[in-house]
């Protein structure tokens, strides 16, 4: 196992503090361009809701690199600014300080064109059929209409929605809408996939199915995935690496763990293995502290 405790004191044993905190001056990765995404001391401060309110710092000084082809999960207490990080990665939010680099190039303005984003809530256009929703992204990228449609139909088959192409989103179940969203994101063949608690609204069975589906699709071409979740089991069973974020405000990564479970994985069965439970205990140890902090903070 390879684990780093970032914020030194008070973190439980089992996490060997092997390396200094990640940072711009000491890159973790030996090869620069093997990094799909790289946050360099990113800080996001938002103005307060009212004129007199203080500003709110969602994330502070986050340095984090996502390797090319890596499945990285970010876990942390609810409302800790995980989504803010994803929005920064997508280019939807500009960091107040620090930079985001995409495959070695700093993202100055505009959206991250290498990335697709799967949102927590349904983000399909409700006025388009499933097929048209999937084809929309391809059309925006200049593909001809019939070619886009044909490709959308291929994706419908690939995500198991064959025969549902003519339906509107409200006629689909929650799981089917997620499949459609996944197809919509993957149809553009992005090099990076950003996922914000994509399965949190699904029931547990559908959720396992979707997780399995995601792993199957990912294994085909190994895109870099940043997967935000508050579900530790989900994070471990899917990822190569799990990063634990501190309680908000001013969130930053506190520890990270390499998940050395074998692939291909069965997301339901892998949860029973000894190694999984070991990892779960170790990560939960760290996460629990943050969750308790977050809980204490909101209760006051």
């Amino acid at each position, binding site marked *: 196992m390879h684990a780093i405790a970032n914020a030194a004191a008070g973190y439980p044993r089992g996490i060997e503090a092997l390396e200094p905190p990640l940072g711009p001056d000491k890159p973790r990765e030996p090869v620069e361009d093997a990094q799909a995404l790289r946050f360099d001391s990113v800080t996001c401060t938002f103005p307060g809701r009212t004129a007199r309110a203080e500003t709110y710092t969602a994330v502070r000084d986050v340095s984090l690199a996502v390797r090319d082809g890596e499945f990285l999960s970010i876990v942390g207490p609810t409302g800790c600014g995980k989504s803010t990080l994803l929005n920064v990665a997508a280019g*939807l939010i500009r960091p107040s300080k620090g930079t985001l680099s995409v495959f070695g190039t700093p993202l100055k303005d505009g959206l991250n064109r290498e990335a697709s984003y799967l949102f927590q*809530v349904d983000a399909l256009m409700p006025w388009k059929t499933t097929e048209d929703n999937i084809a*929309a992204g391809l059309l925006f990228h200049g593909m001809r209409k019939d070619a886009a449609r044909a490709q959308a139909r291929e994706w419908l088959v690939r995500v198991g929605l064959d025969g549902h192409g003519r339906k509107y989103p409200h006629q689909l179940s929650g799981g089917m809408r997620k499949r459609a969203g996944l197809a919509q994101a993957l149809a553009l063949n992005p090099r990076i996939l950003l996922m914000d608690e994509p399965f949190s609204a699904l029931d547990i069975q559908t959720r396992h199915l979707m997780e399995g589906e995601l792993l199957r699709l990912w294994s085909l071409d190994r895109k870099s995935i940043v997967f935000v979740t508050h579900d530790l089991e989900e994070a471990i069973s899917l990822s190569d690496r799990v990063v634990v974020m501190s309680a908000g405000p001013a969130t930053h990564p506190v520890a990270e763990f390499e998940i050395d479970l074998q692939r291909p994985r069965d997301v339901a069965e892998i949860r029973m293995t000894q190694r999984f439970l070991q990892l779960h205990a170790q990560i939960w140890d760290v996460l629990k502290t943050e969750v308790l902090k977050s809980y204490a903070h909101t209760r006051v």
Partner: protein
Amino acid sequence: MRTPVFDPRSKVAVQGTRIAVLASALFLWWLLTSRKWISPFFFGDPAGVFQRIVNWFVSGSVFVHLYTTLVETLLAFVIGTALGLACGLWLALNPFLAIVADPFIKALNSMPRLIFAPIFALWFGLGIWSKVALGVTLVFFVVFFNVFQGVREVSPAVLSNTRMLGANPRQLMWHVYLPSAMSWVFSSLHNAIGIAFVGSVVGEYLGSEKGIGYLILLAEGNFDIDSVIAGILLLTLFALVLDISVSLLEERVLRWQPGGGQTVDASA
């Protein structure tokens, strides 16, 4: 408990009851006026009103008036909707302009705009255009507020998602803002149709040479209450027909919607 006869899902029961309600209202009206319990001079009588409508259509004298009113209404409706749609989109997508324009729009909307009728008569003459102008000022705000709201209500997730899919601002307009605003626009069109009629009839009533409003004004001058009521009934009928056509169009365009849309009201 409801008895099965009054089941709201039974079409026969519902339609039958509606016809019964209408028939009893007409019967009551006839009874009251024919027994002279209320004066037929002031309240008309159903037979006379019916006679008047038949006469109008048999002699063909009503067609020029109907045609005029319908043309005014449709023009006001189409022009007002187009302007409302354009301005609504424009302001909703331009926050600075929206804030600058806000007090003016509120003032214009709360102003009793029917009072413009005499001014429009001076500006555009007694022909159809003064009525169209009045109708447009009424329809515009109804549609405008709904489009404005519709664009504001676009789900931020759908918007971000579509941007992430690579849509440029023009594509966002066509694929997100317009379709999202359409459901609001359509529910406002039902209001707009009625209000467009108000514009043309009030305009005609205040000064014109043709139109149902003019017909009503003439009849009123002769204390011919039957003709007044006949005119009102005709207007109601045509407003209903237009409203149903909007509903049919709505059903086709908003096929993607699970339920009905909502609407925000603008005052007439």
